[in-house]
């Protein structure tokens, strides 16, 4: 049986659209997906001077909570994430690994001074979740603009791409899945 992908909504973050995101990820990955609440210690990841959370440290904490071998876990947090050399990241992943983390902080239109749009936030969250999980399944960035694995360094780029993998990335996923068996 295929091990599931866990969408770990961190530390009480419980948006009403959790199941919608789980559905979107399930559709893209063709794997069982479960949305679950997870508690991790975020304090060590907080950088007071930047008012952001260190994505790598959150990821490390999350990896200690993987429910079963072979499963993948994606943390979802409303907090702004960074890695030391960059001003921010939408998310981070272990390439060909077990875990990933995504922040919805900069995916919300309100962050850019625009009116709230829950539908758009959900759509972007699905794309970033599918993107980071793609890395966890071993995919690298894709040159295809419409592919969800296309690199996005600003939110407009997230909007440009789709929520699914292109043919080449899907093929790569299948090959990796077959070789894992």
């Amino acid at each position, binding site marked *: 049986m295929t091990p599931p992908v866990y969408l770990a909504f961190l530390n009480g973050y419980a948006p009403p659209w959790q199941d919608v995101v789980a559905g979107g990820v399930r559709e893209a990955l063709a794997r069982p997906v479960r949305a679950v609440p997870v508690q991790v210690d975020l304090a060590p990841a907080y950088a007071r001077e930047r008012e952001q959370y260190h994505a790598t440290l959150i990821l490390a904490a999350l990896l200690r909570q993987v429910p079963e071998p072979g499963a993948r876990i994606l943390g979802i947090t409303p907090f702004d994430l960074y890695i*030391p050399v*960059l001003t921010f990241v939408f998310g981070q*992943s272990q390439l060909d690994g077990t875990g990933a983390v995504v922040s919805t902080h900069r995916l919300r239109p309100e962050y850019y001074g625009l009116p709230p749009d829950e539908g758009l936030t959900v759509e972007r969250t699905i794309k970033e979740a599918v993107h980071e999980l793609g*890395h966890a399944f071993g995919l690298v960035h894709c040159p295809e603009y419409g592919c969800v694995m296309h690199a996005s360094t600003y939110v407009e780029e997230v909007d440009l791409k789709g929520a699914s993998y292109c043919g080449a990335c899907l093929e790569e996923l299948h090959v990796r899945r077959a070789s894992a068996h």
Partner: protein
Amino acid sequence: MSARKILIVDDELSVRQSLREWFLEDGWAVTTAENGNAALQLMDDGPYDIVLLDLKMPGMDGITVQKRIRELDKDACVIILTAFASVETAVEALKLGAFDYVTKPVDPDDLSNLVRNALRQRELTEENVRLKEKVSELAQASPIVGDSPKMQRVFEMIRTVAETDSTVVIRGESGTGKELIARSIHAQSKRRFFPIVAVNAGSIPESLLESELFGHEKGAFTGAQYRRKGKIELAHGGTLLLDEIGDVTPKMQIDLLRVLETKRFTRLGGNQEIVSDFRLVCATHKNLEQLVEAGTFREDLYYRINVFSIEVPPLRERADDIMPLARFFVAKYARAMGKPERAVSPEAERLLVQYRWPGNVRELENAIERAMVIGSGETIHSDDLPLHVENGGAVEPVARSLAAVEKEHITRVLDDLDGNVSQAAKVLGIDRATLYNKIKRYGVRRGQ
């Protein structure tokens, strides 16, 4: 296509790890170094497409590391990572040739664009080198003139072999145009958009040929101030033309055989294996089978290179081509000298066609060039041709007595030396009295 390589040099583990992850996700082959010495060691082992270099590190500072990196690889594309406080130093780094700098923490979009632009610049630089090779190749390219049945067969063989990736040996006397044939094979092959790189193995000493073919690392030998790519590496994707393969020394034969079998090699003084996908075309005026027989040419190398063999006939065996070639060279030098094209008189044509052309097409070209330089008027006459042609060096039948050959040779030497018998005797290796006797016996007159 193999992944582009990036080297990240930063003393902070978290920065190295973050950037490593970031670039791995983008499909890069990532290597990290925690200080300048480690970075230089890695650079020594092989080139990187981009180096991300922190300016402030304990031990060797970033500026010094950058200088040393450029000593190892003058084309290295270095991007400086700096804290806001050290922007002045970053400017100094730019003066030293860094591509750009970014202040930490950097906006992901800025980093992404910067790396994309740096990579683009590097690709353009590489493309520029390739195009320069191509332009010089096109500038040198000259059509092969030949209507004779023998040359038509050569053209047919060129077309056949060009479609394959087989190694080719082009045989023929000096001056028959073996290099032109090799360039024609390359120009008709699928490798034509990549360079054809020529090396004359006969004109270079073994030690230099090794470095010429395989390249060298900085400090591999005295005078090796920079890492240098060898011809084999430069021929990647294209064709390597190895002229005078029959003159290659036994040691080089072993090295060549290994490269041909594996397409892998290391630069002199280096230990990193380099892969080069090239097609080998060899040329020689020697009889390789005889060299194998004599034990001076390795049999295994012979079989490796002699997959397809093209014999270029000497000019004397394709007399039909002499006048079309002569007219081609007349037009070529008329253009080059800004003169009108000249006709060839019937007498000059007779001489050209009857001469044996031991130096083949190259000798014919030189003869026409000379005629275009010294002659005037609308026509090339027999006395515009070099003396040996004019004298009908070829008009003489091959079956001649030794005395006739000796008489002709003495006459030529005397003419060359303006009739100075003492000097002529020295050149001929006989004493003056003997030479006088021969002059008398043969009735030699100057200008005969």
